[in-house]
């Protein structure tokens, strides 16, 4: 069955059952592999995408439930001002180690800044505690979010 999706500003038609999670439609049907599989039960945040700007774990989101809402993935996040600032801060502070969780981290961070342009530590904890990083880059993630926020005020 063909499902029409609005992904990163483009209309895409995919052959997939309604119940297939967006994660696997992105990765295995559309070949958009920037969004990662980590746990499959919304515990790690590696699969985070935006649905109408809000962070959502795509591993549990049935593709049939998305409708006309806008899907944004790591491949498109640089088009948003928050996403571009977050990516720049990630590069400036060398946040990344293995990098596998970082698509999800960046998506969560960009969503945070869109709603809370000047987050404090508690805001960051609340927005980012659903994203596990096994390399332990949390200290730099915190600093990079603050830098991205600061760049947004400049």
């Amino acid at each position: 069955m063909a499902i029409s999706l609005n992904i990163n500003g483009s209309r895409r038609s995919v052959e997939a059952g309604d119940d297939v999670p967006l994660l696997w439609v992105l990765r295995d049907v559309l070949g958009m592999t920037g969004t990662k599989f980590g746990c499959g039960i919304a515990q790690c945040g590696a699969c985070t995408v935006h649905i109408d700007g809000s962070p959502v774990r795509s591993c549990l989101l049935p593709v049939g439930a998305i409708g006309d809402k806008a899907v944004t993935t790591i491949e498109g996040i640089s088009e948003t001002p928050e996403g571009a600032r977050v990516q720049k801060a990630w590069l400036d502070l060398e946040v990344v180690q293995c990098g596998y969780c970082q698509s999800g981290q960046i998506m969560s961070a960009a969503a945070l800044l869109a709603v809370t342009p000047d987050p404090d530590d508690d805001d960051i904890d609340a927005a980012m505690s659903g994203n596990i990083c096994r390399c332990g880059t949390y200290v730099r993630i915190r600093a990079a979010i603050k830098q991205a926020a600061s760049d947004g005020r400049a």
Partner: protein
Amino acid sequence: MRTDVKGISRRGLLTAGMAGGVLLAFRLPLGAQTAERAPDESPDQFAPNAFIRIDGEGRTTLVMPQVEMGQGVYTSIAMILAEELDADFRRVAVEHAPPDERLYANPLLGVQATGNSNSIRAFWTPLRKAGATARAMLVQAAAERWQVDPAGCTTFEGVVTHAASGRTATYAELAGAARDQPAPADAPLKDPRDFTLIGTSAKRLDTPDKVDGRVVYGIDVRLDGMKVATLAQCPVFGGRVAAVDDSAAMQVPGVRQVVVLDDLVAVVGDHMWAAKQGLEALDVTWDEGPHADLSSADIWTDLRAASETDGVVARSTGDIATGLGTGELVEAAYEMPFLAHAAMEPLNCTVRLTPDSCEIWIGTQVASRVQASVAETLGIPDGKVTVINHYIGGGFGRRLEPDMAVAAVRIAQKVAAPLKVIWTREEDTRHDVYRPVYRDKIAATLSGGSIAAWKYRVAGAAVLARWLPPAFQNGIDIDAVDSAVDMPYDIPNVHVEYVRAEPPAVPTGFWRGVGPNNNVFAIECFIDELARKAGTDPVAFRRRMLEKSPRMLGVLDLAAGKAGWGDALPPRVGRGIALQPTFDTSIATVVEAEVDGDGEIQLRRVTAAVDTGIAVNPDTIVAQIEGGLIFGLTAALFGEITIERGRVQQSNFNDYRMLRINETPRIDVHLVRSGEFPGGIGECGVIGGPPALRNAIYAATGVALRRLPIDRSLIAGGTRS
């Protein structure tokens, strides 16, 4: 008199290996790596050795013998090569080495493997020579072209300059001519004072592709016509498939095939979701085999009994019998649990088979072992197996094993299409190769406020005996006793034993930090218990045993000073310190933690001081320590794999917990400036956090914990003593 078995420590063994001693049997021909020219690809390409290619268009490609799994090695190895080559570092490209033991084996391990914090230690000298040799040939080519003395030529950022005549030529222009130059036997290396790249926090080469989704890990590989499979092995270790009813699974949309092997089942689909739903619908009856009643309780009973028996002597210094007979005797035993690796990228491997060859797409720490294991599985020569290595989404030792590739190939043999096999998180957790359980017993005597004798027995699995049999000699696993033998403290009578105790059925392997995780925990916890018996501050107690170890003393004082050691703290808040002499790097870690009335722990602050010698990329080193601390503290707070009815009880991040950002404290890492030979880093950060945290809890509550992970019930309501 110190009567160490020669080469018994990791450092000693590795040194001996380099000199052609203990590891002679598998010592590699170092010369081949740096002297042998790569196969010609084009007439204007200059490829003087296995690591460097410069083509006529100006591209400099550096071939990475070690794999990038987050530790930053692609950047630091490239920096070493580019420093001596005088390449333009902003324009170098890196690529993964193919499997080739002769060209790319790790000089300290003797096999092509990335681990043990030895990428920089092993390749520092060979890569400097490789870069210097290539540079010399480029200079010779320029000098010949200009008919000048090579000694009058200088190099900088990919350009040779002859100042006297004002002539310049780029490496690209010289590539064709350089390939005809003889390779000098002994090209001079730079004086470290002249380094312009090494010692700078150069930007990582892999980061840009990792922030915009472009990077391709093994799990991201896509081939034309590819199917996706996921698998289930018997939940009981060693069990087999008895019967399978696939009727429901085959009804799942997108499921194409069910593969049944003697020890596993797999469902093949158009995408991972179909395969996963199909696997859940598959009705499998398992023959659970001989280990169906195995439990953690049994394993601990056996290990505790084994740890009470005499072991093989790994070190004996002074007179332990007399030493233990003088002064006040103190004894303790420390226990460490099984741990899973839980890398963020679940295990995976992609396979394309032809009748007589095989291609493998994977991220692995052991490319040539994957090649050999797959070749053996298929019954074809190694050379018929192509391994395309990828960035790894977390290794931590799990990808030092080739089992995921072997399983994928066995499944792919039944499928008439290229196949990607992905482990679910649950399968990844339940069929890991676990960090072994250990039990360490220490007995010591205190005399006049100092340690007079120290008898230390390590009991646990010998991972090295399975993974690198030639390195397992005289019954001693040098990894399992590494920091026990290399203890930094000056104690007159020291005796170290090792008891090999293999748990039944549970596969064990290397886990980031490896043997020192266990040794340093036991040592540093016990030192704090002795300090308390002696009525001495833990830092002061350690200081007086470090007079012969200036680098250890340096990091101890630096960490203590930066952490505000001795400053007043609120009730139920404590500071703990731990020292480690690991992988040729000296580190002191101070953890400040609070224990609430329920025994819950809040990490307040972590301070580490690190002396690793020459810091190739200081920012990467700081990042590795920061992240390693999180990795180790995660294990101390939450990590334990338990076995019941032969099965691993944990499955996913809901029941195998990871530290999260809201639980992460401030972390300050201080590097000591040094010109000493560079030490290892990747393993190191993991090691010091757990004992420093335990000692902080000891200071906050007075409770001497002796087992990980931390049992909150033991510290609930405790008071600061």
